[in-house]
């Protein structure tokens, strides 16, 4: 009983110091417990009476044994070692880290929704079903599509769903196509989904204005092309100016257009994917509609489709019955189920809440201000950072530290680390891949002009420091105020320790 494993000491919380927080396993003391259960007078059959001897564990799986008090201290301290939107700006490009309204948390916690069993009969879930049907209708109104599935649990799941819809569409027409086109700037989930959808990726180039290279596209198009996946605005934050031509060209060869909705925030109420000519659209509710990202999920990636694809949607789908009640129905030619149940329902509820809070006017303002913010910050950085495709951006802007790197040694990574010290999460770095030393900045509409100005000032300061001090600049040492400093990523991969039990 030495002081080796202090349970109640806050030395690892940044408030009091920067020591390592022990793992829960190190806080464990055999014989402690926090759990308790309902009292019941059921017969107390033994494990041996309930489980055949050959299947019964000889000894139980070892889990941490801690008091509720130590459990709380541990995870509260861990939370103090975690940056989040609620602490400050999080301009992580492509991720739309906007503020998540607190009312959505309460909505998702209400027993009337949170404690409904997914297999309960519709008589027990009319509220849920009505909400889901409404959400689907709203998503269709926003995207300009005819119907949607709410099952996909995230954007990538939506993509794969979309590709399977594409496949089914072509199959139904008796066609077997093998290729899907994506631009070089696409998010990694797009090509990965294409492969899982059973297609091959054909990459098309980017023109000097940052758009899809039409010649390259036309050269790639033939009747072996199942479709194209695009995000518009693109991952460069640019609106695809030639979208009408692209749509016409793809449709001409019988292909479908898939819209990666990760960047939908920029165009809410401005233009709808359906009107641009897209046939399939996924939405990232955790981005556009402010369902919190949860440290990496859960999200929700509903897929909306145009009329001719509705019959293929995954099922069962929540539907409004003719008598005004709500129920489930599976489309006749459904590709089948893609989630264990009905999708990430409590995430869907958050999005429903967000949409109600905003309405048509609120969503338009979201897009307008998101775009205003991105253009403003780009304008502030012009002249200091490179701007690869310098034309008006949508909700995010991609700048580059290429020149700075060449002249001062300052890399995008250094900028990111120094920004942490200056009180901000860093932008996305080294994405999209087609831009060197890329910094992808997405301020979102919920950050104030004052925050933007401070962020711009910080980015300009970092550049100035590098110009003045080169390799000796603060960024090269950064971050110095965080719970840990630069982390050895190479070692993590080389000597893999992925569980506490693998520690040397």
């Amino acid at each position: 009983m030495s002081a080796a494993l202090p349970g109640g000491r806050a030395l690892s919380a940044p408030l009091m110091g920067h020591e390592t927080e022990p793992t829960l396993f190190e806080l464990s003391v055999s014989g402690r417990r926090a759990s308790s259960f309902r009292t019941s007078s059921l017969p107390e059959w033994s494990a041996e009476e309930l489980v055949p001897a050959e299947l019964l564990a000889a000894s139980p799986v070892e889990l941490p044994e801690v008091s509720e008090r130590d459990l709380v201290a541990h995870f509260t301290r861990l939370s103090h070692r975690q940056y989040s939107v609620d602490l400050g700006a999080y301009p992580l490009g492509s991720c739309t880290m906007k503020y998540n309204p607190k009312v959505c948390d309460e909505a998702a916690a209400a027993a009337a929704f949170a404690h409904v069993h997914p297999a309960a009969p519709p008589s027990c879930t009319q509220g849920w079903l009505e909400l889901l049907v409404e959400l689907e209708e709203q998503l269709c109104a926003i995207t300009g599509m005819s119907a949607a599935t709410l099952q996909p649990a995230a954007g990538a799941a939506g993509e794969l769903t979309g590709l399977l819809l594409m496949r089914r569409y072509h199959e139904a027409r008796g066609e077997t196509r093998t290729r899907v086109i994506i631009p070089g700037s696409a998010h990694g989930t797009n090509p990965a989904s294409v492969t899982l959808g059973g297609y091959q990726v054909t990459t098309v180039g980017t023109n000097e204005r940052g758009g899809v290279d039409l010649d390259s596209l036309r050269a790639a198009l033939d009747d072996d092309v199942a479709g194209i996946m695009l995000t518009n605005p693109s991952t460069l934050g640019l609106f695809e100016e030639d979208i009408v031509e692209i749509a016409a060209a793809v449709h001409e060869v019988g292909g479908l257009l898939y819209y990666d909705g990760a960047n939908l925030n920029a165009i809410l109420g401005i233009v709808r994917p359906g009107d641009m000519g897209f046939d399939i659209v996924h939405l990232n509710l955790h981005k556009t509609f402010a369902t919190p990202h949860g440290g990496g999920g859960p999200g929700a990636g509903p897929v909306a489709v145009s009329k001719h694809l509705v019959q293929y949607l995954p099922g069962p789908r929540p539907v409004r019955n003719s008598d005004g009640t709500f129920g489930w129905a599976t489309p006749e030619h459904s590709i089948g189920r893609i989630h264990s149940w009905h999708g990430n329902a409590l995430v869907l509820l958050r999005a429903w809440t967000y949409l109600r809070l905003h309405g048509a006017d609120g969503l338009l303002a979201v897009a307008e201000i998101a775009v205003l913010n991105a253009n403003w910050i780009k304008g502030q950085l012009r002249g200091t950072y490179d701007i690869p495709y310098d034309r008006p951006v949508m909700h995010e802007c991609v700048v580059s530290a290429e020149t700075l790197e060449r002249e001062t040694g300052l890399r995008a990574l250094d900028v990111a680390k120094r920004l942490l010290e200056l009180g901000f999460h860093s932008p996305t770095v080294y994405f999209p891949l087609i831009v060197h030393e890329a910094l992808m900045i997405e301020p979102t509409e919920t950050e104030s002009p004052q925050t933007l100005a401070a962020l711009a000032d910080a980015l300009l300061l970092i550049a100035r420091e590098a110009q003045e001090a080169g390799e000796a600049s603060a960024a090269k040492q950064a971050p110095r105020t965080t719970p840990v400093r630069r982390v050895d990523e190479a070692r993590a991969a080389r000597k893999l320790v992925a569980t506490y039990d693998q520690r040397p």
Partner: protein
Amino acid sequence: MSAPFVPHTEEEIGEMLAFLGLSSLDELFSTVPAALRLAGGLDLPRQQSEADVVHRLEVLGTRNRPVGRSLVCFAGAGAYDHEVPAVVRSLASRSEFMTAYTPYQPEVSQGVLQAIFEYQTMVARLSGLEIANGSLYDGAASLVEGVNLAVAATGNSKILLSGGVNPRWRAVLSTFSKGSGHELISVPLTDGITDFNDAAATDSAQVGAVVIAFPNFLGCLEDVAAARSVADRTGARLVVCFDPVAAGLLKTPGSLGADVVVGEGQGLGTPLGYGGPYLGLFACHASDVRRLPGRLVGETVDIEDRRAYVATLRAREQDIRREKASSNVCTNQTLMAVTAAIQLGWLGTVGLREVALRSARAARYTREALTAIDGVEPAAGAPVLREFAVRLPVPAELAIDRLVEEGYLAGVAVREGYEGTDVEGTLLVAATERRTREEIDGFAASLEKVVR
């Protein structure tokens, strides 16, 4: 311009536009072809106040019947009414965990990274394998990824799929196999247990995965060793769908021979939530780690040699490997993984065992009480754990509807995609540690009325 969470005043907007040399917000969208612009705005109602929206949610809420005192839950089928204490909700809802994203910047993400590391350790222990990932969407998604891993590892794309696997998961696997091209071969149940006899005929050289569930969808405890020997014979990977709560009593799938363990983690602290967000558990051997789908957190050090955590082996993932990635998953279910780590910390060694044991007792008592009713028969004879199937003299859907009126969610009708057993009137009933004797007695009495 007005949106509830946009801070900008008109004046500020004016200044920002002036800086950009613009005179209206509309001009920001000059790159959008005029012909595409939405003329009349979105066809949605106008914004509403928080109070109005909450009011509407309350009204909708009254049209749901959540499980609880007035609807006692005997439904399972992959979603269980397990105890979740306040402390788990309290910690998991801390806004630092809620409002962060994927830990791309480890220096300011040690909280989430360490929590995932602890989660990975716990899942690895529960599964009996060396490596677990940082979560997938749900049990079905884990199954799909497990099969993909097996196919990639063996180069063989035939899948021997037990009829005891959750029919919803099988349906999902079937949907995605349209893209991957895997061939699913159903292996039926005999008296609740997978019967591999006919499967012997399958061209063994092409089998990439043998998939069973332990316990299976009917709550029966499969013979994992039998499945293991089929896998051995065919050179396939053995993929086991497991239940992390049952793991409190059973030998680990890994120790019984599983190569890949997948499962649904909802029972570990996540509410029923009408089916999501849930938690896909995924574990494999260290030798398969380069094919592991999804995020993986590893321990390392920082430049001051302090212990630190980081997302590692990133080269597997879609953002780097792109079309060659084995999985497309990006956003996963991290918050549920953090929740599970907290819940398992709350349970501890003894607590998890107790949940499993108390659930098994409740299930046995329920099974005895129900099958004591005239006309209600067990649907399978194999040993069961927390869940079991009974055959009713009336259609299961009818019984469920009638019992809702009595205040019981009786279970789940076995129908969709369920093969190998006569499903007419088959009801799948689950009992967790939260079920008391009084509740079970009341349920049995009500069912007796209904079938009489």
